[in-house]
Every structure is written in C-alpha cells, then in structure tokens.
C-alpha cells in the first residue's frame, strides 16, 4: 500500500509538472539527395509545439577544424508564414562528467533558413541546442553531433587489457595452486 501511494504520487507529479519548454529527440538519419551536388547531410525533421522543424548538418560527418553548417527550417503547422524571429544556437559537450555549454551564435532567417556555421577544434560528442521563443513559449531543440571518428583502439584496447589481465591472473593463481599442491605432497612424503 505504501509503495502504491508512492507510485500514484510520482505519476501525479509527472502529470502536473509544468512543461517549461519543448524538447525533441535527436536521432539523426543520413541522406543524400541524388539530384544535387551537396555533400551527404545529417538531417532530422520533427513536430514541436505549433511548429514543424527540419534541420540539416553539412557535412554529415564533420571533422575537427573542418567548417560545417547547420540549416534550420521552422514552419508553423497551420501552413502560415515561417517563423521570423531569431534562433540562438548553443553547444554543450555530451561526454560523461562534462556539462560545459557555450553559445555559438544568434541567427535571423535568411530566405526562411536559419544558418549557423561552426568549427570544432576537438573531436567528440556534442549536443547542439537551437532555442527560440514564439507566442510567449520557449522552444528548445536538441540534437547530437559527432565531430570526427571515435578511435577504434578504445574498446579494442580495453577488451584486450581486461582479457589479458584475467587470463594471466588465472594462470598465475593456478600455478601457485599447483606448486602448493606439489610442496604439500612432498611434505607428506617426507613425513612418511
């Protein structure tokens, strides 16, 4: 009964929590438009509040010190004029134990597209946040961005290190066990 109360209270808490901002899932897909000369892009489209948002990142796999660009399209769901305010782009480090965040720019629409350039000096996982305010409501759109390829040595190196230490450890323990057995047998032999 006590647990049931806790669960009910938790559900009620979730339900009554004010929606401070709109957030969306950033699961990208890679695409190539065969009719254009543009490089492969990472893109995502989603519906958020009263807006339909489409963003693209060029190139799809940016490397450190390589200039890249985000194109953001924000259209009202009722098909009226595109969003005309300003969008702020922020970036934060998505690696564990790091929450450093900085603003990379504030953009007004250029031909209905919010364009934001970027250059990252370090490879790693980042979260880009596009923020704007419409009808008195804050809108936040998060999407992940990977800069550079992760090192193949990481998981392989850790796996090899763990395996070697366990196998060598087991081998040493077993040798000591065998040696101890031999010494005990020799002592017993002498005692007889």
């Amino acid at each position, binding site marked *: 009964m006590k647990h049931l109360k806790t669960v009910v209270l938790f559900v009620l808490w979730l339900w009554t929590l004010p929606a401070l*901002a709109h957030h969306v899932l950033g699961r990208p897909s890679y695409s190539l438009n065969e009719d254009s000369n543009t490089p492969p892009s990472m893109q995502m489209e989603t519906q958020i509040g009263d807006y339909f948002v489409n963003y693209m990142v060029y190139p799809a796999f940016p490397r450190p010190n390589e200039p890249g660009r985000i194109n953001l399209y924000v259209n009202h769901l009722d098909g009226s004029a595109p969003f005309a305010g300003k969008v702020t782009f922020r970036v934060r480090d998505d690696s564990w134990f790091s929450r450093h965040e900085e603003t990379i720019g504030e953009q007004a629409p250029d031909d209905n597209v919010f364009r934001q350039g970027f250059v990252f000096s370090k490879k790693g996982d980042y979260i880009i946040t596009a923020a704007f305010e419409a009808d008195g409501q804050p809108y936040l759109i998060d999407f992940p961005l990977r800069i550079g390829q992760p090192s193949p040595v990481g998981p*392989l190196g850790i796996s090899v290190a763990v*395996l070697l230490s366990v196998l060598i450890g087991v081998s040493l323990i077993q040798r000591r066990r065998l040696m101890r057995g031999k010494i005990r047998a020799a002592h017993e032999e002498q005692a007889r």
Partner: protein
Amino acid sequence: MIMTHPGLPWGWELAVWAVMLLLTLRALYRPVAANPGQWRYTLTRLPGLGALVRYATRHPGPLLVLKVFSVALFLLVIVAGLAGSPIPERNIATALTWNLWWTGLIVSVFFLGSAWCAVCPWDTLADWLVKHRLWRRAPAERSLNLRVPIQLRNILPALLLFIGLTWLELGVGVTTNPYATASIALLMLVLATVSLALFERKAFCRYFCPVGRTIGFYAQLAPVELRPISTDVCSTCTTLDCYHGNADIEPCPTHLVMGRISQNTYCTSCGHCAQSCPHENIAWRLRPPGTEASQDARPHWDEAWFMLGLLALTLFHGLTMMPFWESWMTGLARRIGDSGQLLWSFSIGLTVSLVVPIGVYALAVWLTQRLVRVSLPFSRLFARLAFVAVPLAFAYHLAHNLNHLVRENDGLAALFTNPLGNGALPLSMAEKHARHLHLLIPQDMLFALQAGLMMLGFYLAVEVIRRRSMGLTVNQGAASRLRLLPLLAFTLLIHATSLWLLAQPMIMRM
C-alpha cells in the same frame, strides 16, 4: 524522411481473430485429451540423410568448420564496426548484426532449436582463449573452476542483461551505430571469457547470456531435440559421460544429464553428450512442437520471470518501431523536462512496458487461484502457468522479425564487396525506395506466414493453459473449465495487442 513497412492487412487480421475466438471456445468447452501425441522420430533413421546426421552429431569436425566461419564473421563485424563507415546501411557490422543475425536467429530457433549456441562466436572464442584448444578437452587447471555464487545461480542475471541490451539497442540506438555495435559484441566476448576463466563449465551460457536464454526458452517450442534414443540405456549407465565428459570430450557445459533431461531450455546443442556417450545413445529427434512448454518443462520461479520478461520486451520492441512511438516519447519528455536522446523518457517507457504485461499476468493468476480454490501458493501457480508467455512471445517475435528479414536484407550480399563501407555514401532516396520495394519473398506470402504464425502461437498458448491447468479441477466438467477464463482473457489480450502491432505500419530500420 521516415519510411514504413505496411502492416498486416485487415483481412488476415480478421482471420487470426476468428481462429483466436474459436480456439478460446474450444478451450472452454472441450476436455483436455489425457494422453496427447507423444511421437518422436530419430533423425539418424532418415533414409540416406541419417548417416550424415549421425556423422555431424558424433564428430566434432563439421561443427568446428561452422565455428571457424562464425568467428570469422564476428571478427569482420568488430573490424568493420570499429574502423569502418559510420553509415549503418553501408557498414557490414550493423547490417549483418541487426538485419540478418538478430532477426534470422529467432527464425532459426523455429527450425533448429538452440543450434546457434553450438556455433556461437562468443563462446567459441572464449573457449579458444581460455583453454587453448580447438575442440579437444583441455586440462581442468586452465580455469579457476569456481562455483557460481548461489545468489547468481539462476537466470535473473540473464534477464537483467536482456533488459540492459534492449535499453542500449532501442534507447541509445545501437542498431544504427556500427561502432557501438562492435563495442557491445566485444563486451559480450569479454563477459563470456572472464566467466569461463573464473567459473566451472559454461556459467555464462547457463546463467548470464541473454541471447542463449532467449533461444533456450523459444527452443521449448522447436520441433527438434537432442535426447537419448533409449532411456533404458541411460538408466543402466554407470559412467555418465554425457555429464562428466571423457578423456577427449568436454563435459556438458550446462550441467545436464541426458537420462533426466526434459527440456531444451539449457541445452546449447554443443553435441558433447552425443560425442562422449559410449553407447552412441544420443541423437537428434523430431517431435511435436509445443509439448515441452505445455507439459514436459518444469516450472521455476526465476524462469517464470524470464519468460514474462521476454514477452514484455518482445512487445516493447514492436512498440518502439511504430511511427507514433516518437511522438509519445516527445510528449513524455516535454512533461518531465527530458532532453538530448530522451533516455529518461525511454527508460520510463521501457519500465511501463515491462510492468504492465507482467502485472496483468499476475492479476490473471491471482483470479485463477481464487476461482479454482486450490491450496497451491501463488508463487507456484505463477511459475507453473508462466509457460503461456513463451508461445505468445515467440509467435509475435517471429512474425515481426520476418518483416525485418524479408524487407531489409536486399543488398546485403553487395556489402561483402566493401564491408567497411569505405568511401560509401548514404543511401539515396531512390535506393531507399528500391530497397523498400524489393522483398526476398512475395508480400502476400509474407502476410500469410505472419498470420499463420500468429494462429499457431495462439493455439500453442491455449494448449499450454489447458495442459498446465490439468489438476486444477479443469477436467471436472465444462463449468470448471470456465475457471480458466482469467488466463484465457490474458492470452487474448496479449495476442490481440501483438496482432494490432503487427497490423500497424512499421518503421524501416535502415
């Protein structure tokens, strides 16, 4: 742009519904046959092929060849995943692992039982690394041979690992990330090897491996089994080579004695028993599917949780591939202030998906206990009837995976020419459409197979309820059979949910 596969047409949906209702009525009004078909057919008696089956079962050579092949593919996945292109559809690590292996694996259980475990690359590589032998028995001192701590001597660790893998697969999105796919493959190899180096026999296969245990439970419904040809020979056997092994052959990796085996759940099909039996008394046999789940397998508390977890996770897999899932998650994220990859929202969704079916099952068991008025404790009844989850999960899992297998493997052969995807560009829209339209079998045949599987699954689930309820006053007349209603309602509810999921458009994986 999200592309979706069409769901099962309503005509087939109606046909499955009709069969479900007829089978439910049959369960309520027809008594259970006291002695169901117990036929078995030993495959070594097959004209012509029998000798081949006997050779493949009793000699390690053929299995070793398959193991080498599977290890080669595994190493290719590791190399391609870690050093290849991050585009999932152009990298063989993701395509081979998630599109072919993970989907084909479940289909293979339908025909071959737990055969995959016999060629599993994690176990093979762990064996080679720890024992330094290709197949012969290694000296015992290669491993510490510790006993698994009693708290871990059940399959709840496998269930927890399965939930963890599901979280990584669907929450973090490992299926579309070659690097993460290779990293998980390596993690499983490390777990298998460390377990083999520390514990006696194959503790990883027996207690920890979520893939092996999933295969094991589904194999209860497989039409094949590795069993003694004559139980009389086993009852007079004094050496128990199947359990202890012999000078050349390793003992049973999961502590099974062939003379007493009654279920496939923990058999890894390694064939050690067949190779070591001095009486040549172990062979592959054909059997009626479902008899093991409905009567032979013994109920255990931890196994009941695994079976129900398997059912819940299978439904959850289907749910996350529906187009509406993302809007559900976005809605929840807005409520709780989640952002980024929405892992908190996903975790809540996963927890609810686990709790709801298991809760409904517990309620059905509780009602049954009240109705039949037996002195059996709730936990015993819970474990005894949980076998109903196996055919329900397997039927939906098979039907769902057939979609992936048939619709998403076009172009896989071409990946072998550039397995790392070096220099490859993402699929263009034209290629995506071409892949979407090119099925490995005609679409109508796919729908018929899916509907057939759903009908078979429901039939087996009802049979499990009928046979597992024998002794709970079920055979005392039609009125007493009405007491099965809570469990039949649970089965109908779960299967109707599966059918509804199957009838929805499903998002194309890659």
